[in-house]
């Protein structure tokens, strides 16, 4: 039976597009260049392959268990305690990701368009909106992403295509060795794995046979655009890429006052604003869902209130500058990314094996 609050495959792929794009075109290209030079692009490709693997795994799981949620599967196959442990890890993961995204965008906006260090403005902007978006039903949220998608896509295409205008040299490849690339990849693994929300909302996604192509079409487009941005960035700034922290903004910054329209790089700022709202909302929605799985007797209001209090304390007390944020992203979060790239795949593979055995038994 079709879930009344479910979203269709196009809406799912739009969310995937937003999540894949989200925090990968701002700080990451510069950080990757710092450690892996131009081969930072290879790190991108490796990590995107891992994300594609996760999406493929999700599709397999959805085919085998079309109506079941991920937490029901864990509960049924691995027990309640395992479920609680995994979902508590999910909660920590989502909160940490939210803190990271918030900090990156806060520093970005504060430095570039607000010119004032007043975190209250940012908390007032973000918290009510993402709270509301995670409170409304999943279908309404999916439709909201769908309505804004054409605007976001046009801006993304505009930014990426225009960024190639500022390319003035082609840097040499093979500046870093394989170990540099692997270490950098692992160090920045926390910026990936965003597609994990698919598993959290597995039962609320309508998936029919053959929908895989639709799902992958926007994923591939997003990957091309992200890699395109990083390539344009490296080719624009070549050996000084590490000195320019905000990639998508910087590449457009080279073509300031285009046709007397003013600063074109403002478009990148608006783009980042949209992406941040949606990415934070998806994470908070995932957090709320996990909270409800762990604390079955508490409703979403408790989840949101607890998040808001914890979030304000963390961002206000612990991390307020770029260095701390980068350190936080490179030290704490990579371990938590094991949830995306280790625990979820292992669980999924276990479920698929169990299903296969069941099918074989039935055949016998």
């Amino acid at each position: 039976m079709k879930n009344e609050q479910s979203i269709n495959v196009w809406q799912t792929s739009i969310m995937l597009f937003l999540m894949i794009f989200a925090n990968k075109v701002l700080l990451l290209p510069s950080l990757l260049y710092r450690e892996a030079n131009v081969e930072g692009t290879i790190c991108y490709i490796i990590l995107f392959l891992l994300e594609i693997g996760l999406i493929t795994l999700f599709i397999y799981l959805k085919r085998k268990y079309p109506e079941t949620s991920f937490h029901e599967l864990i509960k049924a196959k691995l027990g309640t305690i395992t479920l609680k442990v995994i979902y508590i890890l999910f909660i920590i993961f989502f909160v940490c990701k939210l803190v990271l995204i918030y900090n990156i965008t806060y520093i970005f906006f504060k430095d570039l368009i607000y010119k004032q260090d007043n975190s209250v403005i940012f908390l007032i902007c973000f918290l009510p909106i993402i709270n509301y978006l995670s409170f409304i039903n999943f279908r309404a949220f999916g439709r909201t992403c769908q309505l804004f998608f054409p605007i976001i896509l046009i801006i993304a295409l505009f930014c990426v295509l225009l960024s190639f205008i500022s390319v003035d040299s082609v840097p040499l490849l093979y500046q870093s060795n394989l170990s540099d690339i692997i270490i950098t990849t692992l160090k920045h693994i926390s910026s990936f794995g965003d597609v994990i929300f698919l598993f959290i909302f597995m039962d609320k996604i309508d998936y029919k046979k053959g929908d895989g192509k639709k799902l992958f079409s926007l994923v591939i487009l997003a990957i091309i655009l992200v890699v395109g941005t990083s390539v344009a960035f490296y080719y624009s700034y070549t050996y000084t890429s590490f000195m320019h922290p905000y990639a998508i903004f910087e590449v457009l910054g080279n073509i300031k006052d285009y046709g007397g329209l003013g600063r074109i790089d403002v478009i990148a700022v608006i783009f980042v604003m949209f992406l941040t709202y949606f990415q934070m909302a998806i994470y908070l929605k995932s957090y709320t869902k996990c909270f409800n799985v762990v604390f079955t007797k508490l409703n979403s209001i408790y989840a949101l209130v607890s998040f808001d209090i914890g979030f304000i304390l963390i961002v206000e007390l612990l991390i307020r500058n770029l260095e701390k944020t980068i350190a936080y992203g490179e030290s704490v979060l990579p371990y938590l990314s094991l949830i995306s790239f280790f625990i979820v795949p292992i669980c999924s593979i276990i479920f698929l094996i169990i299903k296969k055995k069941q099918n074989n038994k039935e055949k016998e």
Partner: protein
Amino acid sequence: MNFFNVEKEIKSIKDQLHNSFDVVDRVLNLKDISVGFIYLKSFTDNLIFSTAIYQPISSYEGKLDFDVIKKLVQANDIKEIKKEEIVDNILKGGVVILTNNSNKILSVDIQKFNARAPSEPPTTPVIQGPREGFTEDIKTNIGLLRKRFYSADLVLKNLTVGKRTQTQIIIAYLDSVVDKRIVKEIEKKLKKIDIDGVVDSYYLIPFLIDRPNSLFKQVGNTEKPDIVCAKLLEGRVAIMVDNTPMVLTVPFVLLEELQNTNDYYTNYIYSTLLRFVRLIGSLFAILGPGIYIALQLFHYNILPLKYLITIADSTQQIPFTPFIEILFISLLFQILYEVSLRLPSYLGLATSIVGALILGDTGVKAGLISPPAVIVVAIAKIALYTIPEQSAQITVLQFIFLLIGASVGLLGIIGGSIYFIGYLNSIENYRTPYLAPFSPFILRDNKDGIVKVSLTSMKERPLSFETNNKRRQK
């Protein structure tokens, strides 16, 4: 068998009507029969009463009984009623006739009041196309609808709502097209209403929707029979209420506000252009002042230098903050608007001139307001009327975004836009998404979305809401 004592019965009826001054009773005492008449003189046609009812009976020379009286009355709408229905029939403009040799009661509908003739409604003027509009008389309105459907497919269901007003309500739909679940749902909702009175169709709206406290309009309303006709053909349901020219239509989607009657009576390419203009106009009306204030207060560094210098030049002498300045101009406009609505037209014009020219121009010259602020607010206020039906909602949103822009800048404006779109997406009445066909995106319905295609290409009915018959033409 117990027959009526006419005089005693009439007295009892008059008592039930609290002996109102307009209750008229006549007793005709003939040879072998007494005939009693009772009606409201303010609500019945006295001439018809005399010529078609009273005279034929009083001048009849044969033996009178109830059946003969029934034949003598020269009116179309004659019916036999029960005793408990007497008061109700009198109140609806009927003449009740009683005799002392029968226990049957006759009601003759000769209701009369001065209804205005169908004319072009002031709310939806058209350049081309029909100019007829609904009136306050539900019978006239039914006639206007009936003459557009010479088909038995048009179903009109009658209901009465309002304990004291007993207002007649008609639910109209096309039997072979509409999804019957929607009709049942509407009937159920209307029958559940327990209210003193229904003065206008607007009174029903909160009962027909799931979110009555929302700012946004969720039920369509029009004064034009051709629009109702088109909506019925799409598979919607119309609700007509007596004493009001406003007819409601459901299910309703926001896109309907972007569509205008003129779009359907003119070239479709031109209509598409106009719809884009309306969309841009309404977006500017909502976001324009907010973005202007956000740029001025928070993000002046992203403005092109020439523009920044112009603004700086014109605002440096202004004693107020940019927010107060914009708020002042906006409120001034709103005051002028309210005044011009309520004043007679000749005074309204004078007020507009005083407001727009004298106050605006003098304000700028006196250095109280800056020209860019006046321009932004003026454009936003004019753009507000690109979709006049939504002007109330757009005005509220304009003030909300002005406040957001002044408080938190561009980030807040984008957040606010996402919030409102999220909110609109969560509205669903009669299983119809409010923002369809944009989200969810329904390609086929976008043939009459922002882009309008030729009528020959619109072969199907909308998919945004459920219908029984999807095909419009082959």
